[in-house]
C-alpha cells in the first residue's frame, strides 16, 4: 500500500501551488483512477509518488513506513514505477537495452546480449506486446514507446504502476488491450494508477476513483457507485461557464491578413479543394510506407484520417506537411505544389499544421513559452523592409501572444519555460497558436491529446465553427470517437493505403464494405474493424514485421 498524506507542491519558479494538502492511497490489487481537469495537478501528484519531484510538504508511506524519495531510483526500489505521458527512452538504444537498463542487479553485471534480448522478447510476448526486442527506440511509434516503458517496469517487478494518460493516442483496440493488461496486472496483486480524461471507459475499468480539483482532492469514491456526470461535477465544479468558448476574435490591431486570402477572392479557385493529394507514395529504405494515396480536402469540410499502428498515419502526416519527401505523387495546397519543398512552403501556401510530437517538435520545452508561441507570427512581426534589418515589432508580438494565451485560457506568464505548463495547457496553447494563423487549411494530429472533457468539447465546437467559415480541417487521429464527433468524412488508413471512406455528414454511412446506414455506435465499430482489417474478406493484412 502506498499512501500520500497532506502533499503540497509549490513551484517557486512560477509561483504556482500545484497541490494543496492532497491525500491519495493506492492499494495492491486495485486500479485507481485519478481524474481532474487540465492543470489540476494529477501529473504532479504522481510525479511525487514516483519520486520524480519532491513535495514541498507532506509525507509518503509504503506499507505503513515513512519513506523519502530523493529520486525515482528510491521509488523504484519501493516498487513504484511510472509510465510517463511521453515516455522518455534512450535514443539510439534497442528496445531490449532500454528495457533492462534500470533493472535490478549489479551495475557491473556482464550483459549477454543474446540471452538478454531473448529474455526481453519472451516477457514482451508473454504480455502480448507486439514489440520486437531489437528495434531501435528512435523508430518506435507512440504506443510502442509506451509498451517499452511498461516492459521495463514489468522487468523490474514493480508492484505499483502509474499510467499518465496512456490511452490518449491509442486506437480503440489498443486501449482495449492495454486495459486487459491492467486487469491482468491487477489480478497479480499489483496496484495501478490510471490518469485519464476519458471518464466512461475509466470508470468501467477502475475500482476506485480520486478526483483532483485545483490541487485538492475533492473525493475518493468507489468507481461502480458513481456516474461520469457526477465525476464531472466534482472535477469542474458548477461554474463551468469559465470554460465556454471565448468569442474574442483577432484583435483589431492585427494587420490585414493577406496570407489568409490565398485564392479566396479568386473566383476560379472558389470551388477547388484546399488540399489535393494524388498518387502520394513514400518509401523509406526501399520499404513502402505509403502506397499511392489520393484524396482531397474540400473547402468547409472536416476530414479525419484514422489508422492503427503501422498503418502509415505518421508517415502520411509528415509527407503531406513537407517534413518528409515523398518518393512519388503530388501534394497541392490551394493549387500550389508543396511536395518536396519542405515545411515552409506548405505553410506559405496557406496551411497550418500541428504535429503529433508535442514535446519534441511542436514546442521548445526548455525555452520560455513565448518563444514557442511566436514561431509563426514572428515573421509577420518583422518589418521586412531592407532598412529595418528584420527588427521585429515588439508590440505586435506581445499582443499576439496575449491573444493566444486568452484563446487557450491559460493565464500564466509566457516567460516561464514551456515545460512548466501542464500537458493539457500545452495542448490548448499549441491549438490556439495554429488556429490563430491566418490560413485556410488546418492539419492537426491527435487534436484532443491530453484535453479534459470540457476542453475536448470546446475544441470540437471550435473546429466545427472554423469549418463553417469556409476553411478546412484535416485531422489525423487514432481516436475514432473524436473523429466521429467532428468529421464530415473519415478515411481509414491501413498498410499505407486508404482502406475505406466513411461519409458521416447526416449520420449516414457509406463505405466500400457496407452501403447501408447504421447507428452511431455501429459506425464506431465498423471503423474500428476496418482499421484492423477485420471487416475485409479479401486481402489479408500484410505482414508488418520489420526485419
Amino acid at each position: 500500500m502506498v499512501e500520500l498524506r497532506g502533499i503540497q507542491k509549490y513551484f517557486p519558479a512560477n509561483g504556482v501551488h500545484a497541490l494543496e494538502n492532497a491525500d491519495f492511497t493506492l492499494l495492491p490489487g486495485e486500479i485507481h483512477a485519478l481524474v481532474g481537469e487540465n492543470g489540476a495537478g494529477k501529473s504532479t501528484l504522481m510525479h511525487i509518488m514516483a519520486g520524480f519531484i519532491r513535495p514541498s510538504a507532506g509525507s509518503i508511506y509504503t506499507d505503513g513506513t515513512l519513506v523519502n524519495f530523493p529520486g525515482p531510483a528510491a521509488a523504484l526500489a519501493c516498487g513504484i514505477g511510472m509510465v510517463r505521458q511521453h515516455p522518455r527512452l534512450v535514443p539510439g538504444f534497442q528496445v531490449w537495452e532500454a528495457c533492462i537498463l534500470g533493472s535490478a542487479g549489479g551495475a557491473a553485471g556482464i550483459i549477454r546480449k543474446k540471452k538478454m534480448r531473448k529474455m526481453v522478447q519472451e516477457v514482451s510476448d508473454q504480455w502480448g506486446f507486439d514489440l520486437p526486442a531489437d528495434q531501435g527506440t528512435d523508430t518506435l511509434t507512440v504506443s510502442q514507446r509506451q509498451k517499452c516503458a511498461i516492459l521495463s517496469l514489468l522487468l523490474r517487478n514493480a508492484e505499483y504502476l502509474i499510467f499518465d494518460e496512456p490511452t490518449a493516442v491509442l486506437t480503440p483496440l489498443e486501449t482495449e488491450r492495454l486495459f486487459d493488461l491492467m486487469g491482468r496486472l491487477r489480478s497479480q496483486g499489483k496496484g495501478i494508477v490510471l490518469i485519464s480524461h476519458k471518464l466512461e471507459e475509466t470508470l468501467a475499468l477502475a475500482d476506485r476513483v480520486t478526483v483532483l480539483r485545483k490541487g485538492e482532492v475533492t473525493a475518493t469514491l468507489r468507481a461502480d457507485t458513481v456516474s461520469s456526470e457526477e465525476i464531472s461535477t466534482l472535477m469542474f465544479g458548477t461554474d463551468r461557464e469559465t470554460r465556454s468558448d471565448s468569442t474574442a476574435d483577432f484583435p483589431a490591431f492585427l494587420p490585414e491578413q493577406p496570407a489568409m486570402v490565398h485564392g479566396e477572392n479568386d473566383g476560379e479557385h472558389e470551388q477547388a479543394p484546399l488540399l489535393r493529394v494524388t498518387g502520394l507514395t513514400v518509401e523509406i529504405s526501399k520499404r513502402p510506407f505509403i502506397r499511392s494515396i489520393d484524396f482531397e480536402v474540400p473547402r468547409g469540410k472536416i476530414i479525419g484520417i484514422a489508422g492503427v499502428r503501422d498503418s502509415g498515419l505518421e508517415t502520411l502526416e509528415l509527407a503531406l506537411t513537407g517534413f518528409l519527401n515523398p518518393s512519388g505523387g503530388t501534394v497541392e495546397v490551394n493549387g500550389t505544389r508543396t511536395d518536396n519543398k519542405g515545411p515552409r512552403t506548405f505553410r506559405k501556401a496557406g496551411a497550418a499544421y500541428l504535429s503529433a510530437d508535442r514535446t519534441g517538435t511542436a514546442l521548445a520545452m526548455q525555452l520560455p513559452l513565448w518563444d514557442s508561441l511566436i514561431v509563426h507570427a514572428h515573421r509577420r512581426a518583422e518589418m521586412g523592409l531592407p532598412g529595418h534589418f528584420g527588427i521585429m515589432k515588439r508590440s505586435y508580438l506581445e499582443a499576439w501572444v496575449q491573444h493566444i494565451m486568452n484563446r487557450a485560457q491559460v493565464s500564466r506568464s509566457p516567460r516561464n519555460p514551456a515545460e512548466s505548463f501542464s500537458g493539457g495547457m500545452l495542448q490548448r496553447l499549441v491549438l490556439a497558436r495554429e488556429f490563430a494563423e491566418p490560413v485556410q487549411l488546418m492539419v492537426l494530429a491527435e487534436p484532443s491529446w491530453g484535453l479534459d472533457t470540457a476542453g475536448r468539447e470546446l475544441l470540437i465546437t471550435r473546429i466545427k465553427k472554423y469549418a463553417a467559415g469556409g476553411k478546412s480541417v484535416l485531422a489525423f487521429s487514432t481516436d475514432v470517437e473524436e473523429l466521429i464527433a467532428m468529421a464530415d468524412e473519415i478515411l481509414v488508413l491501413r498498410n499505407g493505403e486508404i482502406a475505406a471512406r466513411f461519409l458521416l455528414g447526416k449520420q449516414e454511412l457509406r463505405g466500400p464494405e457496407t452501403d447501408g446506414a447504421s447507428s452511431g455506435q455501429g459506425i464506431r465499430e465498423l471503423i474500428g474493424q476496418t482499421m484492423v482489417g477485420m471487416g475485409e474478406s479479401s486481402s489479408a493484412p500484410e505482414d508488418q514485421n520489420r526485419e
Partner: protein
Amino acid sequence: MSKQKNPRPREPRQAAYGSVITLVCATLVAVILIAVNSASPAASLKAFFAGPWSSPWFSGNTLDSIALLLTASLGIALAFRGGTFNLGGEGQIYIGGLAASALLLSGETFPGWTMLIFAAIAAMAVGGAMGAVSGLLKRRFGANELITTFLLSSALTPAADYLITGPLRDPSGNLLATPRFAADRILPHILPPSSLSVSCIIAAVLVIGGHIFIAGTGPGYRFRIAGAAPEFARYGGIAAERYWTPALFFSGLFHGLAGFFAVAGTYGMGHLGFPGGLGWNAIAVALIARNHPLALFPAALIYGWLKAGSDAALLATGLGFEAASFIQAAVLILATVRFAGFPRLRLRRVRP
C-alpha cells in the same frame, strides 16, 4: 489579464543575484590567495584591485584588453547561440591578425585609413573562412565542429608562426615580430600612450548590435531557435542545419576582427603568438555571460580586470605566475557556479 505589466523573465534576475554572489566569492578567493602567496600582501592587494585603473595609461590598457575580449567573446556567444561551439578562436584571432598585418605591411600606396579598412576586412574574411570551413564540414560530413575548429586552428598556427618568424619578420630587430606598421596604418588611439584605440568603441557597438540581432530581429530569433531547439525550429520552418555555417562564420569573423584590433590597435605590429590565450579567455567570458550578448559587458569587464589585476600584482610585487593562475582558476570556476540553484538544495531539507 492584459493588465499584467509585461512580466519579466525570472531566470535573468536570479542569474543576476548569482553573478553578484559569484563576484563576491571570487574576490574573496583572490584576496586570500594573494595574501597567502605574496611577501607583501597589502601592496599586492592594492596592485591587484587598483593597479589596472591606477593611471590613464593602465586604465587604457585594461580597457583595451577588455575590448579585445568583448570582440572575441561575442564570436563565441554567437556560435553558441546558433547551435555550434568554436574551439578554434585562438587560431582564428592569430591568423586573422596575421592577414591584417600582411596587408598593413604591404607596399600599397592607398591612404592609411583605406588600408586599415582593407586589413579589417581581410582579417574578418580569413577568420570567418576558418569558421565557415568547420561549419561546412559539420553540415557536409557531420564532423563535430568542436574538433574541427580546434584542429584547423592548430594545423594553421605553425604556418602563421613561420610567416611571422620568417618572411614577415622585421630583420632589423631581434623580436619575433613583423616590423611596426606605418603610423597612419595604426588605429587611432584614444588614451595615448596606452594601447586603447577606437577598437573599444567598435567592440561595444558590435556587442549591442549582437544583442539587438539576437533579441529583436526575425533572423536573430530563427538563429537562436535553430541553436536552442533544432527540432522545434524545423517544425517552424527553420532549417537548423542551415544556421551552422553562418554561426561559425560569424564567430570566426569576430575572432578575425579581434585579431585585427590586436595588431592594428593594441600592438601596432604582429608578434609571434600574439593572441596569448585571448581565444580561450573569450570562451570563459562567453560562458560566464551565459552567451547573452549584453552580459558580455560585465563578464569581460570582470575578467579583464582580474587579468590585468593579476598582471599588476605580478609586476608590482613579483607575485608568481603560479599564484596568478590559481586566482584565475578560482575566478573562472566560481564565475559559472549557479548560486541561483542553491534554494533548490535548501528545499530538499523540508521535512517529508
